[in-house]
């Protein structure tokens, strides 16, 4: 396995607001190592979420390349990119974005169900293994008791843990988190962070966006977006990548 998981080169992205073009990213580049815990910081509106969406294949840049495991993400087919989104990347959002009609267990199963073909569904195997893996995953994030609850019956922290379980069910090599603690109080935020750190210890590569320097301090490496480009920030504490 190569040392690097992902390379972004010269990413440009601008939004058209009527006549005015808002230039958000202007040549952002980034190399991400396997097993790294990377934090992206920057002023509000500087383009952190935009960058994360591009890394996750949810959005396309105007210019620039993204290589994941030596495969160019944006020149590949739509079908490949769907597989990329579903299998290679897990996404965690600030506002959880769980499906309100579905139970906790079903929400976590959803990435599996989306992936399964009609045949697998009919044969029943897909649903059974999805259910088993989803409960195992929920057990890992400490929600084994809440499988049949609806998202609106959970606290913010619990919802975010469900979202993490959902992001991890397909075993993605890259976990993208957009301000996962932004909507939580300090204690809950701490709890989520501990979970992420623990996952990273187990080898999970994570890119996380945050405003909070305290949160950022758990990372191996911090990047700042300024004027559309990415700058490396000096690590304030002694945290270092293990490799």
């Amino acid at each position, binding site marked *: 396995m190569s040392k690097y998981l992902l390379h972004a080169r010269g990413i440009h992205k601008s939004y058209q607001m009527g006549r005015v073009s808002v230039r958000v990213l202007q040549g952002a580049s980034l190399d991400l190592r396997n097993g790294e815990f990377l934090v992206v910081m920057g002023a509000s509106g500087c383009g952190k*979420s935009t960058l994360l*969406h591009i890394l*996750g294949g*949810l*959005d396309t840049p105007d210019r620039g390349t993204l290589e994941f495991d030596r495969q160019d993400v944006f020149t590949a087919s*739509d*079908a490949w990119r*769907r*597989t990329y*989104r*579903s*299998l290679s990347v897990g*996404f965690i*959002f600030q*506002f959880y*974005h*769980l*499906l*309100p*009609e*579905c139970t906790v267990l*079903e929400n976590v199963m*959803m*990435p599996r*169900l*989306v*992936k*399964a*073909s*009609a045949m*697998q*569904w009919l044969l029943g195997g*897909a649903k059974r293994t999805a259910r088993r893996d989803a409960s195992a995953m929920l057990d890992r994030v400490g929600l084994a008791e809440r499988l049949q609850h609806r998202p609106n019956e959970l606290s913010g922290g619990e919802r975010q843990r469900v979202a993490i379980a*959902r992001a991890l069910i397909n075993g993605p090599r890259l976990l993208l988190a957009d301000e996962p603690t932004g909507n939580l109080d300090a204690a809950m935020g701490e709890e989520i962070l501990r979970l992420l750190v623990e996952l990273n210890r187990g080898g999970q590569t994570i890119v996380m966006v945050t405003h909070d320097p305290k949160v950022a301090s758990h990372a191996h490496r911090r990047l700042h977006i300024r004027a559309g480009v990415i700058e490396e920030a000096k690590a304030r504490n002694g945290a270092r990548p293990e490799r």
Partner: protein
Amino acid sequence: MYKWFLAWRYLHTKLIAFFAVCAVALCVFMVLVAMSVMGGFVDKVRERSRGLLSDVIVEAGTMQGFPYYQKFIDVLMSDHRDVVQIATPTIVAYGILRVPDTTLTRPADVRGIKLDEYVQVNTFGQGFHYDRYYPGTTHLGLQRQPFAGFDADGALTLPPDHVKANEKWRRAETDPKAIADYDAEPFRLRGSSEGGDRIFDVDSTDIRAVYGGDAFPGVIVGCDMINERTREGGYKRWDPRGIRMTLTTIAITASGNLTGEAPVSIPLRLADDSHTGVYEVDVKAVYVDFDMLQKKLGMNAMPRGDGTFIQARAKQIIIRLHEGIELNAGADEIRTAWTEFLAALPVQLDLNDERSLGFVRVSTWEEMQSTFIGAVEKEKILMMVILGVISIVAIVLIGCVFYMIVEKKTRDIGVLKALGASGTGIAGIFITYAAGVGAAGSILGAGFGALFVHYINEIQALLERVHPQLRVWNPEIYSFDRIPNVVKPDDVITIVLVAITAAVIGATIPAIIAGRVWPVKALRYE
């Protein structure tokens, strides 16, 4: 896959789905009720027309009728036995029916029939009233009036032949309620202000139950002519069986001239009343004996004085084909037979006869009723057009509801896309969802529709009780005393399939919009 799963979830957790289901259900309900009643109406018109007429009718184009009818019947019954089961002549005339005792008068379509043959060509015989309870007592020959009276034990009873006939009915009747109803009140005496089901008079000079009065030919009268229809669909009678009636009609000569004599007045006795179920018929039909009417109208054979005869005439020959003979094939054979018959007539025809015979037409019952049936069928087509419009409304409605659902679910769609769902997959959720809505709605609508149609007469009676103006089905307008209430499985299946298709079509555009949702935009904000 997840499509079915999510479609199912949405279907039973979203209030808005309930509205969509209701919309579909209402449309299906409306269409099913309209189609069943209209279709049932057409079917009944056809069935009744056929019951009234028979299979094939040989008819004079003129009022004075046509000669040599009996000869042709003989030919049919000998040379065409394999096709014709039975053929019987009738005479049609117009007149006025009067009940001298009550001075009631009514316009009458008079039909001279050979009763024993006529009951075999069509369903006429099934509509008699008294003949049901006293089978075998209805005939059109000379008859006196049956009086109610006292037997040796002093109990009120009817003449012995009625009592015996009634016993016979009891043994054969399969409906115990009919027997119970009869036993509750076998008959009423004339003069009861409320009327009744069976009415008999008493003889003022004889207390026994016997026949009395002068003998006159019998007459069978359409039941809406002298009786009053009850709300329940039955009839109330006031005139006793055997009451005297007079029928006044006009004779027409072979050349179509009115004789110039005073109209013919025929004294009759009420033998029975007849219920064909077609109001237009039952409100003015009067049936008397063929031979008697023929004589009274001067249509019988008469010597001319020079040794030749004026031929007897009839208005129609009504023909019943054998079971399994195709209607039009049978009619064609009879048509050919008629042409051959005319060509082979051995006698020199006089001018009147030649003309009358030239006006004779052979038609099937369908052809005879084609203007009426055609009109009703056109109405059905118009109905279908309106229903088509309703379907389009349903499609638009489903489209709107689904557009709202997609708007509300944009964020979830973004989430699913972020999880790797494809555009077609997302569109599939909504199409599946719409098919579910269509299926649920149409099954609901079809269920309630079928129930409604089944109990439509009861519902109508209920509405009428609330306010008489709410009576929608007027038998005087629609011919039938009951609203057609049969639901055809074919109709149900068609409507359900159309409804599901309409729901899917309606949801297509919103589903495509859903498939095109850009995940980032959907996910960006709470």
